[in-house]
């Protein structure tokens, strides 16, 4: 779950890392009073969860509180990459001598967090790593041992930084590593981490991404920051269709009939499980089909829940038929899914044989499932029909045979 800059900076501040005297607001007039309080030139920054903010005009410099108010008003109305800003951050303009980078991420191969440090801050760290590898320090930290200053020191020293700067940077970087671990972050970076002309250091911008699975452990912090329980903070906001899918999945606790994602196509998909859904979605597209949605069934959901998912997809505008497909199931029962999708058709007043283009779910309780499908005249397939072949048949029926490449 990505955090806005103003939230990330608050976390950095709480961790004992020096930050500027910034203010966050959703109101242009208040931006002016923050600028008055700061009492000098300011920077007004759009608070959006997307890159390219500077280029899009989401960052502006103000010499007076009046200019700060005007810029804030402009930025608050400015959409960037489809995102409206949450608010603006008003920051004093810093007198920077040198910019550094400090970050912590997971290394999935080493299975440990890795501290990254560079004396070339202010730009994308991946770019620095590619073009100036000797300017990037890397040190892994143990998951079990306490985080110690020397790890941060080693990382910084790898870039050649020494003297007073090394001494002053060390506790900052160690604290960043500590907050990464304490808050279950998957990314915590300060960029730029600035050395001022008076020799002090200050975090001027911060990016944080907290692991969604760990949100429950950080309720107090998230409440303090004003992050709502319903905020997904994904790459894009959930659509109404997706929210309706969540409601279906939450209707009872048994199994999963959810993870619904909306797409523009006309092929309604009732698919599962995790890997099966990925495979089938690709397969439909490989055969020239355009899915109306992505979803996942798994863990043996109830008839009611499966029915709810099928109804949701069947009633999506532009969808005429659904394809019900999964990889071989061993926990989810074939007969229960069959009943769920048939019930959905019947309750909507449709003929299941007409609305279900194909049913390809082999595995547990398949004899019972196939018996029911046969009774309703639905085209079904067992494991001898591959997932790709089932997808091909679905595309042929729904989109018309001309869209299926030979």
């Amino acid at each position, binding site marked *: 779950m990505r955090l806005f800059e103003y939230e990330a900076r608050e976390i950095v501040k709480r961790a004992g890392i020096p930050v500027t005297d910034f203010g966050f607001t959703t109101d242009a007039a208040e931006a002016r009073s923050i600028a008055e309080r700061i009492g000098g030139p300011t920077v007004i920054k759009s608070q959006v969860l997307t890159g390219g903010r500077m280029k899009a005009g989401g960052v502006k410099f103000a010499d007076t509180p009046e200019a700060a108010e005007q810029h804030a008003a402009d930025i608050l109305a400015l959409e960037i990459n489809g995102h409206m800003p949450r608010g603006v951050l008003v920051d004093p303009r810093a007198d920077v001598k040198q910019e550094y980078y400090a970050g912590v991420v997971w290394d999935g191969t080493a299975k440990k967090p890795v501290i990254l440090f560079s004396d070339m801050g202010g730009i994308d760290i991946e770019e620095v790593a590619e073009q100036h590898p000797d300017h990037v320090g890397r040190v892994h930290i143990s*998951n079990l041992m306490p985080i110690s200053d020397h790890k941060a020191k080693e990382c910084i020293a790898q870039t050649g930084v020494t003297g007073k700067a090394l001494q002053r940077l060390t506790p900052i970087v160690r604290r960043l590593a500590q907050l990464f671990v304490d808050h*279950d972050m998957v990314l915590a970076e300060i960029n730029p981490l600035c050395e001022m002309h008076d020799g002090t250091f200050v975090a001027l911008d911060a990016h944080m991404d907290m692991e969604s699975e760990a949100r429950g452990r950080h309720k107090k912090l998230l409440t303090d920051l004003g992050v709502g329980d319903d905020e997904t903070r*994904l790459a894009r906001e959930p659509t109404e269709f997706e929210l309706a899918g969540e409601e279906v999945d939450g209707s009872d606790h048994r199994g999963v009939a959810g993870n619904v994602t909306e797409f523009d196509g006309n092929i309604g998909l009732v698919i599962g499980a995790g*890997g099966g859904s990925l495979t089938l979605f690709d397969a439909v597209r490989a055969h020239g089909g355009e899915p109306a949605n992505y979803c996942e069934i798994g863990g043996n959901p109830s008839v009611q829940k499966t029915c709810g998912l099928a109804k949701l997809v069947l009633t999506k505008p532009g969808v005429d038929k659904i394809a019900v497909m999964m990889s071989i199931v061993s926990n989810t029962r074939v007969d229960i899914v069959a009943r769920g999708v048939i019930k959905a058709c019947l309750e909507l007043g449709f003929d299941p044989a007409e609305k279900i283009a194909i049913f390809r779910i082999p595995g547990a309780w398949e004899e019972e499932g196939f018996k029911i499908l046969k009774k309703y005249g639905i085209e079904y397939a067992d494991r*001898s029909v591959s997932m790709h072949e089932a997808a091909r048949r679905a595309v042929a029926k729904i989109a018309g045979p001309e869209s299926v490449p030979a």
Partner: protein
Amino acid sequence: MSILIGAETTFIVQGITGREAVNLTRECLDYGAGARIVGGVTPGRKGRDVHGVPVYDTVAQAVEAHGSPIDGSVVTVPPAFTKDAVFEALENDIKLVVIVTERIPRRDVAQMVELATMRGARIIGPNCLGIIVPDVVKMGGIGGPAKNASQAYTPGPIGVISRSGGMTTEMSSTLSAASLGQSTAVSIGGDAIIGSSYAELMPLFDADRHTEGIVIYTEPGGRMEAELAKWVIDNECRMPIVAFMAGRFMDEMPGMSFGHAGTIVEGKEDTAAEKIARLADAGIIVAEEISEIPDIMKSKLPAHVEHLKPPGVSVPSWTHGAS
């Protein structure tokens, strides 16, 4: 033959009184020669039994009752309690821990893995279905009830490693239908940090003289495929590897997560396209469809592999043909 487990492997089920764990226990007891589940652990439930398996309050009690070290544990406790359960297993000298539980924060997983490494133990998962040695034993829910597992898995020369539990069965079933049995199939889990990656299992398959080829199922997200490609090149891998990559559509949707927790395109190296290129560089063939895997594998397997067919299975025609 097999890797990780065999007919003699003893294990416990932690969280054995949960609904899924009760089913899993039944399935493992019924499959093949019948798993040697020597105990179950659920705090506060000592004295009960699950399908004849005695339940204890602690792992230490299970070990004491067994009278000698226990090889493995299947952990099925809720995410908030998983780390403690795994630590408990490791501190009681259990050397193979299969973690079924999903949605465990990665800090916890990383801690479990680090302790396991310190103790000379191995973790499979989390968010996995476990390990199966066809017709011999299974440890975890992989393949489902014994009847269903027998339908999909058959003994033979192919090692299967998969980030998706369900797809482990789908691919093995496809291999079985083409007379390519499996030596061992391992569901390694779909999270960003897991106990055993492809590259970490390869030395085991490499050392198993009955494994002649490897089939993997993979997805976008993480660097595990690059790690495998490196292993294959560095070790001049003796076995052909055929991969299937799902979730190719995700390359167009960075920042969105599908399928499994670890399946997300966050950087260039995470994409399906990049991974396919890395795998290809190492000579790993990436099949476009699962149904193509058996023929690709047959064309790559050494000629002597037919001798490893289990008795009673007719030698398929491909072993005599142009391949």
